[in-house]
């Protein structure tokens, strides 16, 4: 064995012993993914199902009963009868329903005989969360229009030139938000685990004074960093495997892409995240500061700017531009594609290339800041 390999072997063995004897690394690698995925996978749901809706029918009739049936039939709505607009408002302000549908007393009459004015139904929606309000509006309008179209078809009154929209939801046919969130969540978990694993390691060596004796030994900087990357790469990939299995088995997310690409993207991203942790750790030299910096620079971008929860395309231009410097967005994009759409080569390869650049730059930056000096 060449001296360089002997040194690398010694350093690697040291890292492995330390990992095995120090529960904190093992907790970060194995417990953190489980906790984060379980909490967020179950906790964060963008699904708007069973939205409460108070229905006020001022003059009950055959039509209004049918409309009520149509609303009840929708899986997205949970209608309840309210006796008056006031009663509906009370339910709304108490947060028991998201909106009130008011069918005035002349609703049925206008519906039956064509008149100058159409039959009017009023929707009062709680727009505190504009998104939910719009979704509610869509579902209520959809239910009403479907019912009206059915009525006309029954009566063979379909006028010329009317359009029926036939739609299919691709990639996530059941519109399960878990299928959308969990792949992004896996990227988020990897980002946290990767950076935290190494962010504390070098800082700990500085604090305990062991870095000083490493620096005064013949070990090269490249060897010290390589040993750490290899050891924590193994640990991080195990954490990744746990996250992947949880996504498939626990949350029932489909996986339609190539495992090779999954491995390649996870590897490249992990190399980036581990090197980034080392970078922070090298500059911070104290575990406390390193942990703070790691949390700030990893958690926020991964949560806000990765496309995991918030659609990047609908962000303002400058914010979209900002997302490109956070490699987690590329991983989120790859994982969402691989899980839901399959291996879309152009998309996957472009993002993979971006991850490779990120990993290279970060490892280079880490080597550059880790000089053989204390000053």
């Amino acid at each position, binding site marked *: 064995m060449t*001296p*360089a390999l*002997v*040194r690398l*072997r*010694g*350093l690697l*063995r*040291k890292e492995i*012993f*330390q990992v095995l*004897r*120090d529960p904190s690394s093992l907790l970060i690698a194995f417990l953190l993914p489980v906790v984060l995925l379980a909490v967020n996978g179950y906790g964060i749901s963008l699904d708007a199902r069973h939205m409460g809706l108070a229905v006020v029918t001022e003059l009950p009739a055959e039509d209004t009963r049918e409309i009520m049936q149509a609303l009840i039939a929708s899986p997205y709505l949970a209608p309840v009868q309210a006796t008056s607009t006031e009663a509906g408002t009370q339910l709304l302000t108490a947060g028991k329903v998201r909106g009130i549908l008011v069918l005035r007393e002349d609703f049925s009459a206008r519906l039956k005989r064509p008149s100058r004015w159409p039959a009017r139904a009023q929707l009062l929606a709680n727009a505190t969360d504009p998104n939910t309000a719009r979704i509610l509006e869509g579902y209520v309008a959809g239910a009403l229009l479907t019912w009206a179209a059915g009525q006309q078809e029954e009566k063979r009154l379909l006028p010329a030139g009317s359009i029926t929209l036939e739609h299919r939801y691709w990639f996530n046919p059941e519109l399960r938000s878990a299928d959308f969130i969990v792949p992004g969540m896996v990227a988020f978990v990897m980002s946290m685990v990767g950076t935290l694993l190494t962010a504390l390691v070098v800082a700990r060596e500085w604090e*305990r*004074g*062991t870095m*000083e*004796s*490493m*620096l*005064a*030994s*013949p*070990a*090269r900087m490249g060897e010290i960093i390589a040993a750490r990357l290899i050891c924590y790469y193994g640990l991080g990939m195990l954490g990744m495997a746990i996250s992947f299995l949880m996504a498939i088995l626990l949350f029932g997310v489909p996986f339609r892409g190539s495992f090779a690409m999954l491995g390649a993207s996870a590897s490249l991203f992990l190399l980036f995240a581990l090197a980034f942790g080392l970078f922070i750790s090298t500059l911070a030299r104290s575990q406390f500061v390193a942990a703070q910096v790691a949390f700030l620079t990893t958690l926020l971008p991964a949560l806000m700017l990765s496309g995991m929860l918030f659609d990047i395309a609908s962000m303002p231009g400058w914010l979209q531009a900002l997302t490109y410097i956070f490699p987690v967005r590329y991983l989120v994009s790859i994982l969402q594609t691989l899980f839901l759409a399959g291996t879309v080569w152009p998309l996957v390869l472009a993002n993979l290339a971006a991850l490779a650049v990120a990993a290279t730059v970060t490892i280079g930056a880490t080597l550059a800041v880790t000089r*053989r*000096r*204390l*000053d």
Partner: protein
Amino acid sequence: MLAEVAGLHHSFAGVRGAAATVALNDVSATVTEGMITGVVGPDGAGKTTLLRLLAGLLRPTAGRVTVFGHDMAVDAQAAHGAIGYMPQRFGLYEDLSVAENLSLFADLHALAAAVRQERIPRLLQFTGLTPFTTRLAGKLSGGMKQKLGLACALLARPRLLLLDEPSVGVDPASRRELWAMVAAMLAEGRAEGMGVVWATAYLDEAERCGRVVLLHEGRMLAEAPPGDFLAALHGRVFSLAVPAAGRRKAGRLAAADPAVLDVAVESDSLRLVLHPGAAPPDAAALGGTALTPAAPRFEDGFVDRLATAPATAPDEPARPGRAGGTAIEVRDLVRRFGAFTAVDHVGFAVARGEIFGLLGPNGAGKSTIFRMLCGLLRPSAGSARVAGLDLLRAPAAARARIGYMAQRFSLYGELTVAENLSFFARVYGLDRIAQAAAIADALDRFDLGAVRASVAGALPLGVKQRLALAAALLHRPDILFLDEPTSGVDPLARRAFWARIGALAEAGVTVLVTSHFMDEAEYCDRLGIVSAGKLIATDTPAGLRARVRGPDLPAPTLEDAFIRLVAA
């Protein structure tokens, strides 16, 4: 010649706009093979910076560091294979066992298997660590860690061995063992041209070095063989025998004598260094019985270079109370942590106005006893009464009578001197008028007026120590607890400090000191030697020495006494 530094300057950039700290200022020295070069000086002298520069871990601000002919500023890598470096905290991996640490360092130096099989067992045997190869380094005692650190640094047979304060905080017996080990290694490596640099704050260790670089606050005071330091002192050092009771009074008289440059207490005698050419004073006039010439020591050389007059302290206002009463009484004190007994049936009593020292290595149980006496820790069994009060029953009342000076001084580094004093005055509950008076008195008495607006963190160690003592005395306590008060402080500051403590004791303040430092122990009226949680002997320093005096040891030092009594 192994290494050379020439015209070396090193300063560290100030944090947040503070002025840069100068760690080394114009140091030039050489390290030669076949000997131990001592880098000697109190804390903050620049020893660690010099060793790090020699190891190529720092780039000098100005000047040149050359090791084996390589300029360390640009070519440190070339020298690293032949440098063994042991940093202050030993640089060991605490999660790795003894064998694993050694194996790691063998890998780092890419030693061949045959070489390892020969050297590792030898080093283990040499350091006495053979029975502990599977023990985690974090679970070793301080002395054992230090030996393992040394073994790791020696593994690659370095030509230049750099040891940064290897002997700090370990017991005297381990310290002696370490010196013997390094001397043996040096003798063995003589053929290969090995040399050792040993940094230390213990001035007595300088006498064992072949050559000494003496540093003080970044400046190099001298670079010479230790004998040269003492040449100017021949005929100027005397020992004044004094009766035990009149020791402090004699000390003050001697300090006031114009012929005397320095006075140091040495249990049953005073050590006097005279001004050059001054005639020896009359023993009787100083309250002593006999004045005999003494051999100069390294510390005398240090003092001679820096001091202008003996340290004195202003008189302290007398504390009310009856002389001779018992101020601290400890009976059968026990403290267990789980299965481990940190303090095992310790009992002693300290009279009012007495200076009592608890002497023992790190980990012996001194701090645990101390914390129980301060009411910070509950004893498992036994009782401790301070100023007649039971600490468990009336902790607040007892604490109001106690002044406490912690080891690292526990000052607020970001606050100024005046702000620190004002904070502690309020903590002790002094009213507004008393606060102002106490602070003004402290600034004056402790000579802190000039630095009152300086930030405490930036002060030199000796001044910090003065400030910490001033803060501990703001509420005029009649009992003073000192935890390792002068470890690492330079001899002049230490003398000044003990002059103040002496004045306090004269005024009736009872002083309890913990220390692992023999020089501090000399100033105590009585000592308790603590080892492995037990109080194994209580006596005056002179009494302790008398216990081990024998044909093989006609003039034992306190360190000799300590080692013998612990071993017995």
